[in-house]
């Protein structure tokens, strides 16, 4: 089974938008079976509305989609309450944090109340300068060793590859940290993560609609130095184990 471990639905304040049907159509084109779906930041900036949209999409396509909740740690107790509502009442299965769009340091102490005692995984939009650099995401994982932390973009987002070493240091220091393939053009980096830290810690993800699943999945399907067992884990096995529960 192939699982896209990061996609979005809704209408973003930045202009990006995707319906569940558009997402599934694109997944079908790329021969992808299931997807983790997260909220886009809505024009209202009210993430509760966005979580409701994700929950509705999952209710329509329960065999294809697993929903994650998005909250803003800047809102303190209100964020904790929304996380409980979304993972309880709405049935969402994980937490998605976007330090760039909500503007917070991923290792700011205000994030800690969300992760304390958390029993679902966390996906972090990673690689953004100042806010979710590789070692900063690693620091979050270090403070919460019982929580599975999954970093987008290989835990680095740099067209020169300058963030790769810090991403690898974060992986080396935190067994609870895994990374996604989203937009990572360096196949040697992706294969290196699998070789050095284990294929169990690398997950295929497209980040649709920001990236195109038809291209992104090729980074794994065509990676020449992954053996077939590792490829199966990266394409879906790891997402089933870590994110789908």
């Amino acid at each position, binding site marked *: 089974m192939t699982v896209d471990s990061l996609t979005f639905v809704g209408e973003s304040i930045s202009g990006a938008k995707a319906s569940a049907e558009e997402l599934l159509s694109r997944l079908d084109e790329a021969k992808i079976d299931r997807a983790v779906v997260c909220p886009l930041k809505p024009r209202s900036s009210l993430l509760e509305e966005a979580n409701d949209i994700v929950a509705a999409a999952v209710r329509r396509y329960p065999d294809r989609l697993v929903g994650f909740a998005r909250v803003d740690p800047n809102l303190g107790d209100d964020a904790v309450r929304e996380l409980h509502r979304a993972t309880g009442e709405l049935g969402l299965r994980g937490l998605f944090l976007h330090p760039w769009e909500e503007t917070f340091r991923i290792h700011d102490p205000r994030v800690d109340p969300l992760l304390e005692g958390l029993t679902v995984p966390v996906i972090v939009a990673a690689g953004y300068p100042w806010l979710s650099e590789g070692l900063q995401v690693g620091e979050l994982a270090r403070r919460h060793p019982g929580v599975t932390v999954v970093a987008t973009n290989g835990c680095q987002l*740099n067209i*020169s590859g300058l963030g790769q070493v810090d991403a690898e240091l974060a992986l080396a220091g935190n067994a609870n940290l895994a990374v996604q393939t989203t937009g990572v*053009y360096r196949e040697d980096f992706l294969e290196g993560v699998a070789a050095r830290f284990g294929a169990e810690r690398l997950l295929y993800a497209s980040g649709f609609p920001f990236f*195109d699943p038809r*291209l992104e999945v090729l980074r794994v399907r065509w990676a020449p130095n992954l053996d077939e067992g590792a490829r199966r884990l990266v394409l879906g096995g790891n997402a089933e184990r870590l994110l789908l529960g």
Partner: protein
Amino acid sequence: MTIVDAPEVNPDALELIAEACAAYPGRLDAFARIHPWYGDESLALLERAIVELGFKGLKLHPVTTIAHPAGEDTLRLIRKAAEHSAPTLFHCGDEPLATPLAVARAAAACPEATIILGHMGGYAHVDEAIEVAERHPNIVLETSAMPYPDKIRAAVGRLGPERVLYASDGPACSPRIEVEKVRLAGLGKDAERLVLGENAKRLLDAVS
């Protein structure tokens, strides 16, 4: 091209590339990656690369050299390349010294030079790359690493298919995937042919 900036690290960098190209005539063309800070030595390296060794262009990586694209040392190199109708390929991405607006300063200062924006702005500066190319007709965009097929289509639509070049950045990126990225852009047969090869050939053939 090498991944170091001559004359630093490997003083035989140009020879290494020249030998590789000579081993596969008709398949490989060389660009000279040069550090601008060595003044007349840098200029002499470029002159030798083009005139004696048959190199086809200049490559500049402002992030590894910490040399601003519009610094005088850099502009001298760009102008020297342009004397031979050789293009200058800049690493162009999301870091200071390498953003499209920074490289556009060089394009404005050297209107006689062809300036290629490698990675066409990276992850977060792609729209900016297209915008500066609209303002400066001597700017050409190069597709490697940049992960958005639809932005290739946008660039071709706004600039024309003659001003976008396929590139892989191999071996860091997979040429197989990078070609597929251009195909996913859905450019149509004629534009795709230009982007995938004819534009590059036209630029390389013009070098004298």
